[in-house]
């Protein structure tokens, strides 16, 4: 029995004509994509109302595989572009999928300000501890001591705790999972899509081709097994307490889930007031 790929159960959600995707063997980004698409399917989400935006880098290619309105911006500007979309048409659900370098180095300013405004947007960040697309350079989440192409003697810079940064900047929903926690990740994505406000999901993803190789972490399977060993689920703790030390301990879970007035709603409210007044 041979089945045409057009009958793939996720065909309606994926641009199957673009698969196989560009990601390396064992890369965690394909898992993140599955999880996102599974969440859409579980929610029976109206694809006419979805806009997926990404920046530059390996994760930046994610938007190109999703069969909704989608846009691949310049490096670091995914959240800024997405803010324009959401404010211009508040009926749309805007999801940003991008990497740690794109969102937190070159795009860091837009991240903290979008979180501060509490604009309705789900940001999913694949954190693989380095710049994969450009060949494995030091990134804002590279752990102390890790070797990369641009930290050949070991990294001496303190890394960001992304979930903590999101929470401290004002995000109303924050969770962290690894690509191994694929069912829990899917559930968090569903929550993030439904949540009104700025939601952030950090996904620890193995990059065996560059980060894994320079740090002798083995192949993707070894890195996934390592994540299995070291990850600890702690729901509800404030993410500044959620350790993220690859090789030692990575705390995952649903960290923040609070309510705050949402930005695009407030914009619409005073537009209504001004137009009637």
């Amino acid at each position: 029995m041979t089945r045409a790929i057009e009958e793939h159960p996720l065909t309606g959600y994926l641009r199957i004509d673009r698969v196989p995707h560009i990601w390396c063997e064992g890369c965690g980004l394909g898992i993140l994509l599955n999880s996102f698409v599974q969440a859409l399917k579980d929610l029976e989400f109206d694809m006419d109302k979805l806009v997926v935006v990404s920046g530059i880098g390996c994760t930046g290619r994610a938007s190109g595989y999703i069969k909704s309105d989608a846009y691949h911006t310049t490096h670091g500007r995914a959240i800024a572009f997405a803010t324009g979309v959401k404010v211009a048409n508040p009926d749309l659900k805007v999801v940003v999928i991008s990497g740690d370098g794109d969102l937190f180095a070159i795009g860091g300013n837009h991240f903290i300000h979008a979180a501060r405004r509490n604009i309705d947007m789900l940001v999913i960040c694949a954190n693989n501890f380095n710049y994969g697309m450009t060949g494995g350079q030091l990134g804002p989440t590279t752990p102390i001591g890790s070797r990369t192409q641009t930290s050949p003697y070991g990294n001496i810079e303190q890394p960001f705790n992304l979930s903590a940064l999101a929470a401290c900047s004002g995000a109303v929903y924050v969770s962290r999972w690894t690509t191994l926690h694929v069912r829990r990740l899917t559930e968090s994505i569903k929550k993030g899509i439904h949540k009104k406000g700025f939601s952030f999901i950090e996904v620890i993803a193995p990059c065996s081709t560059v980060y894994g190789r320079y740090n002798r972490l083995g192949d993707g399977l070894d890195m996934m097994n390592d994540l299995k060993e070291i990850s600890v689920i702690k729901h509800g703790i404030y993410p500044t307490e959620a350790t993220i030390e690859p090789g030692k301990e990575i705390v995952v879970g649903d960290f923040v889930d609070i309510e705050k007035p949402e930005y695009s709603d407030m914009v619409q409210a005073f537009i209504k007031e001004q137009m009637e007044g």
Partner: protein
Amino acid sequence: MGQNLGLAGPVQVNRDFCKRCGYYFEFCPRGVFERPDEITLKGVTPPRINEWAECTMCSLCTLLRPDIAVSIEV
């Protein structure tokens, strides 16, 4: 273009998309998959179905498949 390696079961494997992550046989809770000896022209070893009877259609394999190479008929 999809090629099913299982003969009658619900799990479909697309050899063209597979890049050999190895996650299915490592993390399938029921040991449905096995590592084949065969290497394709692209140098990958797509998973082979070992034991259908064990499959509970939990679909973990379809979520953990980074290459969009496995689907399951529910």
